[in-house]
Protein backbone atom coordinates (compact mmCIF):
# COMPACT_ATOMS: atom_id res chain seq x y z
CA UNK A 1 0.00 0.00 0.00
CA UNK A 2 1.41 3.39 -0.94
CA UNK A 3 1.99 6.01 1.72
CA UNK A 4 -0.41 8.91 1.70
CA UNK A 5 -0.61 12.01 3.81
CA UNK A 6 -3.88 10.76 5.27
CA UNK A 7 -2.44 7.36 6.20
CA UNK A 8 0.46 9.03 8.03
CA UNK A 9 -1.91 11.33 9.89
CA UNK A 10 -4.01 8.38 10.93
CA UNK A 11 -0.94 6.96 12.68
CA UNK A 12 0.07 10.25 14.26
CA UNK A 13 -1.28 9.23 17.69
CA UNK A 14 1.91 7.21 18.05
CA UNK A 15 3.73 10.49 18.53
CA UNK A 16 1.90 10.96 21.81
CA UNK A 17 -0.53 13.57 23.08
CA UNK A 18 -0.40 16.57 25.34
CA UNK A 19 -0.90 16.05 29.08
CA UNK A 20 -4.25 17.13 30.55
CA UNK A 21 -2.73 20.21 32.22
CA UNK A 22 -2.13 21.82 28.81
CA UNK A 23 -5.82 21.61 27.98
CA UNK A 24 -6.83 22.78 31.48
CA UNK A 25 -4.61 25.85 31.22
CA UNK A 26 -5.82 26.63 27.70
CA UNK A 27 -9.46 26.29 28.80
CA UNK A 28 -8.90 28.46 31.88
CA UNK A 29 -7.21 31.19 29.82
CA UNK A 30 -10.18 31.26 27.43
CA UNK A 31 -12.78 31.20 30.21
CA UNK A 32 -13.53 34.72 31.52
CA UNK A 33 -14.67 33.28 34.86
CA UNK A 34 -11.07 32.32 35.68
CA UNK A 35 -8.93 34.99 37.33
CA UNK A 36 -5.20 35.35 36.78
CA UNK A 37 -4.61 33.86 40.24
CA UNK A 38 -6.68 30.80 39.39
CA UNK A 39 -4.77 30.26 36.15
CA UNK A 40 -1.59 30.61 38.22
CA UNK A 41 -2.78 27.91 40.63
CA UNK A 42 -3.19 25.45 37.76
CA UNK A 43 0.29 26.33 36.48
CA UNK A 44 1.75 25.71 39.93
CA UNK A 45 0.51 22.12 39.93
CA UNK A 46 3.46 21.39 37.66
CA UNK A 47 6.72 22.48 39.31
CA UNK A 48 8.73 22.03 36.10
CA UNK A 49 6.33 24.23 34.15
CA UNK A 50 6.34 26.81 36.97
CA UNK A 51 10.14 26.96 37.00
CA UNK A 52 10.26 27.29 33.23
CA UNK A 53 7.74 30.14 33.15
CA UNK A 54 9.74 32.00 35.79
CA UNK A 55 12.86 31.58 33.66
CA UNK A 56 11.02 32.81 30.58
CA UNK A 57 9.71 35.88 32.44
CA UNK A 58 13.26 36.64 33.62
CA UNK A 59 14.89 36.01 30.23
CA UNK A 60 15.90 38.40 27.47
CA UNK A 61 12.48 37.70 25.92
CA UNK A 62 10.92 40.11 28.42
CA UNK A 63 13.86 42.19 29.69
CA UNK A 64 12.50 42.92 33.14
CA UNK A 65 14.40 45.38 35.31
CA UNK A 66 13.73 43.47 38.51
CA UNK A 67 13.65 39.72 39.14
CA UNK A 68 10.26 38.05 38.71
CA UNK A 69 9.94 35.57 41.56
CA UNK A 70 6.28 34.50 41.68
CA UNK A 71 4.05 32.78 39.14
CA UNK A 72 1.44 35.54 39.52
CA UNK A 73 3.99 38.18 38.51
CA UNK A 74 5.33 35.98 35.73
CA UNK A 75 1.82 35.65 34.31
CA UNK A 76 1.30 39.40 34.57
CA UNK A 77 4.52 39.95 32.60
CA UNK A 78 3.92 37.24 30.00
CA UNK A 79 0.16 37.73 29.65
CA UNK A 80 -2.39 34.93 29.71
CA UNK A 81 -2.87 34.84 25.92
CA UNK A 82 0.83 34.25 25.41
CA UNK A 83 0.85 31.74 28.26
CA UNK A 84 -1.06 29.28 26.07
CA UNK A 85 1.63 29.29 23.42
CA UNK A 86 4.45 28.97 25.94
CA UNK A 87 2.76 26.09 27.78
CA UNK A 88 2.30 24.23 24.48
CA UNK A 89 5.92 24.96 23.56
CA UNK A 90 7.09 23.74 26.96
CA UNK A 91 5.36 20.38 26.67
CA UNK A 92 5.73 19.69 22.99
CA UNK A 93 9.40 18.81 23.13
CA UNK A 94 9.10 16.52 26.15
CA UNK A 95 6.04 14.81 24.73
CA UNK A 96 7.37 14.10 21.28
CA UNK A 97 11.14 13.72 21.68
CA UNK A 98 10.75 10.17 23.01
CA UNK A 99 9.26 9.05 19.71
CA UNK A 100 12.12 10.23 17.50
CA UNK A 101 13.59 7.85 14.96
CA UNK A 102 17.16 6.81 15.75
CA UNK A 103 18.57 8.53 12.66
CA UNK A 104 17.10 11.88 13.63
CA UNK A 105 19.39 13.83 15.96
CA UNK A 106 16.87 15.03 18.56
CA UNK A 107 19.03 17.77 20.01
CA UNK A 108 20.02 19.26 16.64
CA UNK A 109 16.43 19.07 15.48
CA UNK A 110 15.13 21.06 18.45
CA UNK A 111 17.98 23.56 18.28
CA UNK A 112 17.03 24.37 14.70
CA UNK A 113 13.37 24.64 15.74
CA UNK A 114 14.19 26.88 18.72
CA UNK A 115 16.34 29.13 16.52
CA UNK A 116 13.47 29.30 14.02
CA UNK A 117 10.99 30.12 16.81
CA UNK A 118 13.21 32.88 18.17
CA UNK A 119 13.68 34.27 14.64
CA UNK A 120 9.90 34.23 14.03
CA UNK A 121 9.36 36.06 17.29
CA UNK A 122 12.04 38.67 16.49
CA UNK A 123 10.65 39.31 12.98
CA UNK A 124 7.13 39.67 14.43
CA UNK A 125 8.45 42.04 17.12
CA UNK A 126 10.20 44.11 14.46
CA UNK A 127 6.85 44.44 12.71
CA UNK A 128 5.11 45.30 16.00
CA UNK A 129 2.78 42.30 15.70
CA UNK A 130 0.54 41.38 18.65
CA UNK A 131 1.09 38.21 20.72
CA UNK A 132 4.58 37.39 19.54
CA UNK A 133 4.63 34.06 21.43
CA UNK A 134 2.34 32.53 18.83
CA UNK A 135 5.09 33.26 16.31
CA UNK A 136 7.59 31.54 18.59
CA UNK A 137 5.34 28.47 18.78
CA UNK A 138 4.86 28.48 15.00
CA UNK A 139 8.65 28.36 14.49
CA UNK A 140 9.15 25.75 17.18
CA UNK A 141 6.63 23.41 15.53
CA UNK A 142 7.39 24.12 11.87
CA UNK A 143 9.28 20.88 11.16
CA UNK A 144 7.17 18.42 13.17
CA UNK A 145 6.17 16.82 9.87
CA UNK A 146 9.77 15.58 9.61
CA UNK A 147 9.37 13.74 12.91
CA UNK A 148 6.23 12.02 11.70
CA UNK A 149 7.91 11.10 8.40
CA UNK A 150 10.86 9.60 10.25
CA UNK A 151 8.64 7.74 12.67
CA UNK A 152 6.52 6.23 9.91
CA UNK A 153 8.90 5.84 6.97
CA UNK A 154 12.15 5.16 8.80
CA UNK A 155 14.84 4.25 6.28
CA UNK A 156 13.18 5.94 3.31
CA UNK A 157 13.13 9.20 5.22
CA UNK A 158 16.70 8.78 6.43
CA UNK A 159 17.85 8.14 2.84
CA UNK A 160 16.18 11.32 1.61
CA UNK A 161 17.86 13.32 4.36
CA UNK A 162 21.25 11.81 3.55
CA UNK A 163 20.76 12.50 -0.15
CA UNK A 164 19.86 16.09 0.68
CA UNK A 165 22.99 16.55 2.79
CA UNK A 166 25.27 14.93 0.21
CA UNK A 167 23.81 16.27 -3.02
CA UNK A 168 22.12 19.46 -1.91
CA UNK A 169 18.70 18.70 -3.40
CA UNK A 170 16.09 20.48 -1.25
CA UNK A 171 14.51 17.94 1.12
CA UNK A 172 10.98 19.16 0.45
CA UNK A 173 11.59 18.67 -3.29
CA UNK A 174 12.62 15.04 -2.82
CA UNK A 175 9.64 14.42 -0.55
CA UNK A 176 7.26 15.88 -3.14
CA UNK A 177 8.84 13.78 -5.89
CA UNK A 178 8.73 10.54 -3.91
CA UNK A 179 5.60 10.97 -1.79
CA UNK A 180 3.50 13.61 -3.52
CA UNK A 181 3.62 15.89 -0.46
CA UNK A 182 6.33 17.29 1.83
CA UNK A 183 7.05 17.52 5.56
CA UNK A 184 5.53 21.02 5.65
CA UNK A 185 2.16 19.78 4.29
CA UNK A 186 2.22 16.92 6.77
CA UNK A 187 3.24 19.06 9.76
CA UNK A 188 0.54 21.64 9.07
CA UNK A 189 -2.14 18.97 8.83
CA UNK A 190 -0.86 17.38 12.05
CA UNK A 191 -1.15 20.69 13.92
CA UNK A 192 -4.61 21.24 12.46
CA UNK A 193 -5.56 17.82 13.78
CA UNK A 194 -4.32 18.89 17.21
CA UNK A 195 -6.70 21.87 16.88
CA UNK A 196 -4.00 24.52 16.92
CA UNK A 197 -5.23 27.79 15.40
CA UNK A 198 -5.07 28.46 11.67
CA UNK A 199 -2.43 31.19 12.24
CA UNK A 200 -0.09 28.39 13.33
CA UNK A 201 -0.93 25.33 11.21
CA UNK A 202 -1.40 27.24 7.93
CA UNK A 203 2.09 28.85 7.86
CA UNK A 204 3.64 25.53 8.86
CA UNK A 205 2.01 23.98 5.77
CA UNK A 206 3.24 26.80 3.53
CA UNK A 207 6.71 27.60 4.87
CA UNK A 208 8.36 26.27 1.69
CA UNK A 209 5.81 27.96 -0.62
CA UNK A 210 4.84 31.14 1.27
CA UNK A 211 3.56 33.00 -1.77
CA UNK A 212 0.79 30.42 -2.20
CA UNK A 213 -0.72 31.04 1.24
CA UNK A 214 -3.84 33.16 0.75
CA UNK A 215 -5.04 32.84 4.38
CA UNK A 216 -2.00 33.84 6.46
CA UNK A 217 0.50 35.38 4.02
CA UNK A 218 2.33 37.40 6.67
CA UNK A 219 2.79 34.46 9.05
CA UNK A 220 3.96 32.21 6.21
CA UNK A 221 6.40 34.87 5.03
CA UNK A 222 7.80 35.29 8.55
CA UNK A 223 8.19 31.53 8.98
CA UNK A 224 9.86 31.16 5.57
CA UNK A 225 12.45 33.83 6.41
CA UNK A 226 12.91 32.61 9.99
CA UNK A 227 13.67 29.11 8.70
CA UNK A 228 16.37 30.58 6.46
CA UNK A 229 17.80 32.70 9.29
CA UNK A 230 17.86 29.77 11.68
CA UNK A 231 19.84 27.58 9.27
CA UNK A 232 22.18 30.48 8.40
CA UNK A 233 23.07 31.04 12.06
CA UNK A 234 24.12 27.36 12.28
CA UNK A 235 22.65 26.01 15.53
CA UNK A 236 23.32 22.38 14.55
CA UNK A 237 26.59 20.62 15.15
CA UNK A 238 26.97 19.34 11.56
CA UNK A 239 25.15 17.50 8.82
CA UNK A 240 22.56 20.23 8.81
CA UNK A 241 20.15 21.19 6.06
CA UNK A 242 21.17 23.65 3.35
CA UNK A 243 19.40 26.99 3.24
CA UNK A 244 16.37 26.58 0.97
CA UNK A 245 15.91 29.10 -1.87
CA UNK A 246 14.53 32.43 -0.67
CA UNK A 247 11.12 33.42 -1.98
CA UNK A 248 11.44 37.14 -2.73
CA UNK A 249 7.68 37.69 -2.33
CA UNK A 250 8.01 36.65 1.32
CA UNK A 251 10.72 39.25 1.88
CA UNK A 252 8.56 41.92 0.21
CA UNK A 253 5.52 41.04 2.35
CA UNK A 254 7.42 41.87 5.54
CA UNK A 255 8.23 45.47 4.53
CA UNK A 256 11.30 45.54 6.74
CA UNK A 257 14.26 47.80 5.97
CA UNK A 258 17.51 45.96 5.27
CA UNK A 259 19.27 48.29 7.71
CA UNK A 260 17.69 46.62 10.75
CA UNK A 261 18.85 43.12 9.81
CA UNK A 262 22.25 43.05 11.56
CA UNK A 263 20.66 44.18 14.82
CA UNK A 264 17.79 41.75 14.34
CA UNK A 265 20.18 38.83 13.76
CA UNK A 266 22.09 39.84 16.88
CA UNK A 267 18.94 39.83 19.00
CA UNK A 268 18.01 36.40 17.60
CA UNK A 269 21.48 35.16 18.45
CA UNK A 270 21.27 36.38 22.05
CA UNK A 271 17.71 35.21 22.64
CA UNK A 272 18.53 31.82 21.13
CA UNK A 273 20.95 31.00 23.94
CA UNK A 274 18.35 31.98 26.53
CA UNK A 275 15.67 29.91 24.80
CA UNK A 276 17.91 26.84 24.57
CA UNK A 277 18.69 27.16 28.27
CA UNK A 278 14.99 27.33 29.07
CA UNK A 279 13.54 24.79 26.66
CA UNK A 280 16.37 22.26 26.37
CA UNK A 281 17.49 22.60 30.00
CA UNK A 282 20.60 20.51 30.64
CA UNK A 283 21.50 20.35 26.95
CA UNK A 284 22.30 24.07 26.95
CA UNK A 285 25.84 23.82 28.24
CA UNK A 286 27.21 21.91 25.29
CA UNK A 287 25.93 24.40 22.74
Amino acid sequence: MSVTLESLLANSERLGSFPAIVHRINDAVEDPRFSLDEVGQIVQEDPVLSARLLRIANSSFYSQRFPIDTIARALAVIGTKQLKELVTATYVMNTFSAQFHNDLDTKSFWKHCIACGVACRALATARREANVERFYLMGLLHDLGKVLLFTELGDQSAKMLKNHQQNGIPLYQMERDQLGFDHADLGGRLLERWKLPMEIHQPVSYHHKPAEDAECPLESAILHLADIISIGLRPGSGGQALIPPLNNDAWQVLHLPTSILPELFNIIRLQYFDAVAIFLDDHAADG
Partner: protein
Amino acid sequence: MTLAQDVRDLSGRLLLAADSEITDKHLRIFRTWGISEADVLPQQSDSPLVAVELDNAGTESNLASGSDELKELFRHCDHNHPFIKELLQFAQLHEPLANGAPPKSAGNDGKVSL
Protein backbone atom coordinates in the same frame (compact mmCIF):
# COMPACT_ATOMS: atom_id res chain seq x y z
CA MET B 1 32.05 61.70 23.91
CA THR B 2 28.54 62.67 24.91
CA LEU B 3 25.52 61.01 23.38
CA ALA B 4 23.26 63.43 21.46
CA GLN B 5 20.26 61.13 21.08
CA ASP B 6 18.91 58.11 22.93
CA VAL B 7 20.27 54.77 21.72
CA ARG B 8 17.60 52.10 21.51
CA ASP B 9 17.53 48.50 20.39
CA LEU B 10 15.26 47.15 17.69
CA SER B 11 12.31 46.77 20.03
CA GLY B 12 12.65 50.37 21.18
CA ARG B 13 14.21 49.51 24.54
CA LEU B 14 16.46 52.25 25.82
CA LEU B 15 20.11 51.20 25.98
CA LEU B 16 21.61 54.60 26.82
CA ALA B 17 19.96 57.98 27.25
CA ALA B 18 20.94 61.19 25.49
CA ASP B 19 23.50 63.37 27.32
CA SER B 20 25.27 60.32 28.78
CA GLU B 21 29.03 60.08 28.55
CA ILE B 22 29.92 57.08 26.40
CA THR B 23 32.34 54.68 28.06
CA ASP B 24 34.05 51.50 26.84
CA LYS B 25 31.38 49.49 28.65
CA HIS B 26 28.67 51.24 26.64
CA LEU B 27 30.51 50.52 23.39
CA ARG B 28 30.66 46.83 24.32
CA ILE B 29 26.92 46.84 24.99
CA PHE B 30 26.17 48.61 21.71
CA ARG B 31 28.23 46.05 19.82
CA THR B 32 26.46 43.22 21.61
CA TRP B 33 23.14 44.60 20.42
CA GLY B 34 24.38 45.26 16.88
CA ILE B 35 24.37 49.06 17.15
CA SER B 36 27.05 50.31 14.81
CA GLU B 37 26.40 54.06 14.87
CA ALA B 38 25.45 56.68 17.44
CA ASP B 39 24.89 60.42 17.31
CA VAL B 40 27.24 62.30 19.60
CA LEU B 41 27.49 65.97 20.49
CA PRO B 42 30.33 67.89 18.90
CA GLN B 43 32.95 68.50 21.58
CA GLN B 44 33.60 72.22 21.25
CA SER B 45 31.41 73.71 18.64
CA ASP B 46 27.80 74.42 17.91
CA SER B 47 27.83 72.41 14.70
CA PRO B 48 25.05 69.86 14.10
CA LEU B 49 25.05 66.27 15.31
CA VAL B 50 27.92 64.04 14.33
CA ALA B 51 27.33 60.37 13.47
CA VAL B 52 30.20 58.31 14.80
CA GLU B 53 30.90 54.85 13.50
CA LEU B 54 31.77 52.61 16.41
CA ASP B 55 35.14 51.00 15.80
CA ASN B 56 34.99 47.49 14.41
CA ALA B 57 31.44 47.02 15.65
CA GLY B 58 30.37 43.42 15.45
CA THR B 59 33.63 41.95 14.25
CA GLU B 60 33.83 39.04 16.65
CA SER B 61 35.88 36.80 14.43
CA ASN B 62 37.60 37.03 11.10
CA LEU B 63 35.77 36.77 7.83
CA ALA B 64 37.64 33.73 6.65
CA SER B 65 36.43 31.42 9.42
CA GLY B 66 34.05 28.75 8.20
CA SER B 67 33.84 30.24 4.71
CA ASP B 68 33.72 26.84 2.98
CA GLU B 69 30.93 25.68 5.26
CA LEU B 70 28.99 28.88 4.57
CA LYS B 71 29.56 28.59 0.83
CA GLU B 72 27.98 25.15 0.95
CA LEU B 73 25.15 26.25 3.25
CA PHE B 74 24.21 29.18 1.00
CA ARG B 75 24.62 27.34 -2.32
CA HIS B 76 20.94 27.62 -3.29
CA CYS B 77 20.76 31.32 -2.43
CA ASP B 78 20.98 34.41 -4.58
CA HIS B 79 23.96 36.14 -2.97
CA ASN B 80 22.90 39.48 -4.41
CA HIS B 81 19.55 39.48 -2.63
CA PRO B 82 19.73 42.12 0.13
CA PHE B 83 18.36 39.79 2.82
CA ILE B 84 20.74 36.95 1.92
CA LYS B 85 23.63 39.40 1.63
CA GLU B 86 23.05 40.63 5.20
CA LEU B 87 22.57 37.12 6.58
CA LEU B 88 25.73 35.82 4.92
CA GLN B 89 27.72 38.79 6.14
CA PHE B 90 26.42 38.29 9.68
CA ALA B 91 27.21 34.57 9.53
CA GLN B 92 30.74 35.37 8.36
CA LEU B 93 31.27 37.76 11.26
CA HIS B 94 29.89 35.55 14.03
CA GLU B 95 30.61 32.11 15.37
CA PRO B 96 27.96 29.44 14.64
CA LEU B 97 25.32 29.16 17.36
CA ALA B 98 26.49 25.56 17.78
CA ASN B 99 29.72 26.91 19.29
CA GLY B 100 27.78 28.07 22.33
CA ALA B 101 27.00 31.37 24.00
CA PRO B 102 29.53 34.21 23.76
CA PRO B 103 31.49 35.02 26.93
CA LYS B 104 29.32 36.55 29.63
CA SER B 105 29.12 40.28 29.07
CA ALA B 106 26.75 43.12 29.75
CA GLY B 107 23.64 42.49 27.75
CA ASN B 108 24.25 38.78 27.36
CA ASP B 109 21.33 38.04 29.64
CA GLY B 110 19.30 40.76 27.98
CA LYS B 111 19.25 42.92 31.09
CA VAL B 112 21.30 45.94 30.21
CA SER B 113 21.81 48.20 33.19
CA LEU B 114 23.62 51.42 32.53
